[in-house]
């Protein structure tokens, strides 16, 4: 039976950074589609360099728990996993539609299916919506609400913004929320001015980040005016400039993320149909009042 390796950034400084990775790995473990599920990190251990030797399976699905296609998914991870003959053209992606590439790793005798990141998978749009349901505690949230998908944004990597705009567009096409906009921390349109971009009184703000940390817990709440000092916390929702801001925190903490990990492996040929059913049932939004 093949193994699943989830590769994530991790942190030298923040002990909570690995929590979503562990949580989703545990959900996938419980679903039983893989004999072995292993987490690996850029900043923690096992490292990308050594994770493949810790699994016994000869066939490994590697899914990056990253939000966009770029430096990490295209350069760092394949290099550190020692994937021979890797070339980004194997994904044939325009920045948001990476699929999979089957390669061998130089230091182990294993076949590696190197998948695109969870962040650019179409199913991620559903996780964003579910995050909105979770934070409003309303499984039907949409009408009368605006939704902001927030990304880091950076001039160094245009794909970073592409992933945000891609999901904003997909959620918009669902015709569920009155308005959907993509906002950014480091480029226009900026999340600081969130109330300028929405007419709806209620706005759900979902940052497309894997883990809660400095950006999602300190920067964004302060930038949006939810609080003057993140240490004092904020209400959900918080009234800002005549709008109610429902701030969701990192989308990566939503349990349904485990579904996207499995979808990535399924797209690469893994037999995970049953596991997908189990995971979807376990990670569904509780109905209101539950």
């Amino acid at each position, binding site marked *: 039976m093949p193994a699943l390796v989830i590769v994530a950034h991790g*942190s*030298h400084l*923040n002990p909570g950074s690995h929590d979503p990775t*562990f949580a989703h790995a545990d959900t996938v473990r419980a679903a039983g589609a893989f004999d072995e599920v292993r987490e690996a990190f850029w900043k923690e251990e096992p490292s990308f360099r050594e994770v493949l*030797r810790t699994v016994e399976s000869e066939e490994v699905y590697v899914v990056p728990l990253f939000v966009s296609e770029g430096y990490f998914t295209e350069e760092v991870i394949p290099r550190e996993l020692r994937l021979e003959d890797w070339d980004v053209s194997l994904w044939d992606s325009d920045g948001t539609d990476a699929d999979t590439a089957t390669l061998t790793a130089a230091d182990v005798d294993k076949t590696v299916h190197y998948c695109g990141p969870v962040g650019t998978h179409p199913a991620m749009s559903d996780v964003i919506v579910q995050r909105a349901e979770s934070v409003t505690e309303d499984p039907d949230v949409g009408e009368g609400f605006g939704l902001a998908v927030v990304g880091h944004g950076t001039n160094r990597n245009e794909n970073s913004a592409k992933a945000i705009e891609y999901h904003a567009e997909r959620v918009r096409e669902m015709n569920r929320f009155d308005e959907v906009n993509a906002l950014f921390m480091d480029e226009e349109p900026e999340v600081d001015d969130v109330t300028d971009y929405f007419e709806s009184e209620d706005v759900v703000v979902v940052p497309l980040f894997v883990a809660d940390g400095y950006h999602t817990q300190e920067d964004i709440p302060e930038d949006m005016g939810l609080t003057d000092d993140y240490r004092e916390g904020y209400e959900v929702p918080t009234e800002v400039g005549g709008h109610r801001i429902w701030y969701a925190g990192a989308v990566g903490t939503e349990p349904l993320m485990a579904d996207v990990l499995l979808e990535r492996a399924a797209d690469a040929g893994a037999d995970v149909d049953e596991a997908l059913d189990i995971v979807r049932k376990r990670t569904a939004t509780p109905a209101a009042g539950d």
Partner: protein
Amino acid sequence: MNDSQLRALREATADGVTCDGLSASRDDAGYTFATPEVHHESLTETEFDALATENPWFVSNWHYWRDTSETNGAFLRWIEHASELGVRERYETLVDGLTREWGQLLVTATLGTDGERSYELRHTADADVENLDSYHDPREARDIATLDDTGEYRPLKTAPTLREGWRFPDLDGRDLVRTVEFFYPATVANWYRERQSDLDVTHFRETAERQTGIYDVVDDLDVDGVERLAETCCVDSQCLKRREWDEDSETTLDVPRGDGEFPCREPCSLVVAAARQFAILESEETRTYELELTPSERSQLGELVDAVADGRVDEIREADVGDGANRYRARYLRAKRLAEGEFESLREKSQ
């Protein structure tokens, strides 16, 4: 030994069995059964079963090891000193338990029914402690390993700061390895590779040359800097892995490699991040400064640096004003000599 183990052995004789002194096989002449003490050939099935029943430890021992993977098997056999102790001696000793230390982990193997092994895992410092919190799921090791005793984050899993007070009382072999690997990731795999003379060491220079992005500058650190880097981050007081990498395959570092059981095969992400900072700092040229201090103040600066570098700051008692790194002493020095973080008497000498 139980019946199903005996049946399994009988079936396995078709391909031949050898394990820890037991050998069993079958050919046209009948069964062969041998241990270090007995050797019988041309046996009927009944005779074979009788001999196996007289040597149950050899049979259950074979049965236990036949299903373990290569790496796990090597590690678990090392735990119970299999290369030094024969089956009889091991079984007798396993009743009370055979132990090994793995970093700050203490593993004890004991014997269950029909030769099954059970493993207990705890902190080496808790060897004789009775009241420990019990855990059963290997994944719980991830949480135990995240923070140290003072609640600080442990970014380096093999730092000698694992907290105490817990135990995993009854793990099977596979879960023991999983638990150990959650505490100290990849250590079993690399230890096994080393035992097979197959450890793929990546030296500092190769690691540095591979870096890109903000870590591109790591390669600027020269060999003297790498020596200091290893002395800073990779000695036993900081990390329990035994450093096997050097500057490159020809240039070994003088810093002791450490006494760790498991090897470090390449600079880790923490070392690379530290190397980046040191490389940036080393890009500055030295200058000559003039500073007025009393002899005691001068030696106090050394004590302050030592206290921080040795992680001793929290141990210095509040009223121990005889210690140069005592908080009151440091505050007095600051009040007398520093303004806004700079020494007031400091002058840069013109070159």
